Every structure is written in structure tokens, then in C-alpha cells.
């Protein structure tokens, strides 16, 4: 009688395209998680040697320290314009941007909207943590009403500051957008869903479907001045009600007139 061999297999390991470099991000920051998910999407889609990333400015700028791919560092807000330039030169390469909320929705709003409107076949990874992280926690277009930040010390007020902008819903209204989704990665269940969505966004580009956009709700424990567990709860209890998760647009054919 043969005794069945029992061996242990590694069921969770580091994606190949992620360099063996430790993340400098704050404890509980979901930039690390998002980098991981983007790396897994690149690995599993087998596109590492033809992917070009464009890093925005903010905590997102260090993309090139972590992903072993060609990367361009863009001026603040302009990553979508750079991505357009690169994709128009190399339509066969996979081009994505990695930007924060101040970068993409404030200074970069025009470039973001027009890149989506032209239907540029690029993928935008948008990390939304309701404020400017790198510079110390100032109000961003995504800061929630009543939220106190270093430049809204009395809380964001509609009169004077306006409402927070829902980028996913807005971009989904444009014909040029092929895939627009919002996810979070504050719980394991959300992380697993987010990974599928990010992989789908890259798949849309691989299939030349047009502009793909994934907004990822993230905690910022340092600038929210709460611990990572409380920050993860804040994403669920305060961010998700205003920024609902879901797929807002998913084109199924490449014809869209």
C-alpha cells in the first residue's frame, strides 16, 4: 500500500514583476496593496516585457522603485497626457498610469477627462484616499463633506469647497471610456474583488477596447491621524457610502458609435 506523499505548496507568494524592495509606505497604507494587485495583473497577463508605466506625483511617484518595468515620471497631474504620447508611439505596448486623487482629479482633471474622451487605449490606476498624502494631508477634490484636513481645518464645506467629485461616475458618462470601476482594498474580500477588476482593466487594453479606469479607495492612516485598523473601518463606513463600489461602465464590443 503506497502512502500518499503530503507536500506543502506555496499558495501566496510575491509577484515576479515586483522588485525585492520593501515598500516605504506608511503602515496600513493601501498603496502597497495596490502595487501588489497591479503587479499580479501584469504577471498573470504575461505583459511584463511590453508594459510601460507612468507615475504621477505624490506617494504614487515611487512606482519605478517597485515595479520592474519601463517607467516615465510625469509632472503633477499630467500622467494621462504622457500615457497618450507613449501609446501613440507604441500602440502595441501596454501603457498605464498610477496616480493619486490630487494628481488626477485636481491639477490633472483636464488631461484625465480628455484622455478618457479620446478613448485612448490606456489604463488608469487611481488611488483615492480623500486627500494629498505626500504633502501632509491637504484637502483634495475627493475630501468628504465635513472632513477636516490641513487646508480645511473647519471641515469641508459645500459653500466654498464644493462637494467631493466622483471621478468614476463622471468618466463613465464619456463615450470614450470602455471600462470604469471603483474598488477598495481595505478588507481581504475587497482586495480579492479589486484584483479581478484591475486584471480586467488591463485585459480591456490588451483587447484594444479603449480607455480603462480603476478607482481604488484607500486608507491614509497617517494623514487621517488614526490607526490602520480604524482607517480601514473609515473606508467602509465613510468612504464607500459616498463612493460606492462597482463597475460603472463595461464595453463589450470595440464598436461604440
Amino acid at each position, binding site marked *: 500500500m*503506497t502512502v*500518499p*506523499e*503530503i*507536500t*506543502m*505548496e*506555496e*499558495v*501566496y*507568494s*510575491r509577484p515576479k514583476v*515586483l522588485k525585492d524592495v*520593501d*515598500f516605504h*509606505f*506608511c*503602515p*496600513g*497604507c*493601501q*498603496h*502597497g*496593496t495596490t502595487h*501588489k494587485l497591479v503587479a499580479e495583473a501584469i504577471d498573470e497577463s504575461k505583459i511584463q516585457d511590453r508594459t510601460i508605466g507612468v507615475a504621477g506625483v505624490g506617494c504614487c511617484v515611487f512606482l519605478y522603485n517597485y515595479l520592474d518595468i519601463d517607467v516615465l515620471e510625469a509632472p503633477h497631474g499630467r500622467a494621462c497626457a504622457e500615457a497618450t504620447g507613449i501609446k501613440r508611439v507604441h500602440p502595441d505596448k501596454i501603457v498605464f498610469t498610477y496616480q493619486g486623487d490630487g494628481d488626477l482629479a485636481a491639477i490633472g482633471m483636464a488631461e484625465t477627462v480628455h484622455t478618457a474622451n479620446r478613448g485612448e487605449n490606456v489604463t488608469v490606476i487611481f488611488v483615492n484616499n480623500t486627500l494629498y498624502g505626500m504633502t501632509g494631508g491637504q484637502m483634495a477634490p475627493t475630501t468628504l463633506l465635513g472632513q477636516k484636513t490641513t487646508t480645511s481645518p473647519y471641515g469641508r464645506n459645500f459653500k466654498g469647497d464644493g462637494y467631493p467629485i466622483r471621478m468614476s461616475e463622471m468618466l463613465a458618462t464619456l463615450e470614450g471610456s470602455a471600462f470604469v470601476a471603483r474598488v477598495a*482594498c481595505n*478588507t*481581504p474580500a475587497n*482586495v*480579492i474583488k479589486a484584483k479581478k477588476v484591475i486584471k480586467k482593466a488591463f485585459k480591456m487594453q490588451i483587447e484594444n477596447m479603449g480607455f480603462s479606469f480603476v478607482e481604488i479607495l484607500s486608507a491614509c*492612516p497617517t494623514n487621517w491621524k488614526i*490607526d*490602520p*485598523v480604524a482607517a*480601514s473601518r473609515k473606508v467602509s463606513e465613510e468612504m464607500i457610502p459616498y463612493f460606492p463600489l462597482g463597475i460603472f461602465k463595461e464595453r463589450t464590443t470595440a464598436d461604440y458609435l
Partner: protein
Amino acid sequence: MPKAYIKIRQEKCKSCSLCIISCPQNLIRMSIDHINPLGYAPVEFVDPDGECKGCKMCAEICPDLCILVYREKKMK
């Protein structure tokens, strides 16, 4: 032989504790007796009864890729 277990790279842990609240079996806790070179009290895996199922929730949520997960693979 346990059905599954995890390995934590304690020297890279930033003590964010998201894994602690994510484990359905409550098998992770913050260590109380040492600080790692980064200055954080890292988390540790404590599974005396072999309850870990290898669900990977801890590894999925860890922002710093500190956790590797191993599961039993039966072969003939």
C-alpha cells in the same frame, strides 16, 4: 503535519494589524516581547492546534507582502 501555515517576515512587518483583524481563526497576534529593526512590534502566527486553513486572507490584506501562505498538496 498541519494542513496549512503561514510564514511572516517579521523584520518587514509595520504592525498595521490588518492581518490580525482579517484572520477568521484569530491565529495572528501582535508580539509582546520584541521590536523589529524598523522599530515596530511585529505580528506573529500562533496556531498550536493546527487550525489554519490556508485561506490567505492575511496575505491578501497585508500591504507589505510580509506573509507567505503554505497549504497541503496531496500527491500520489
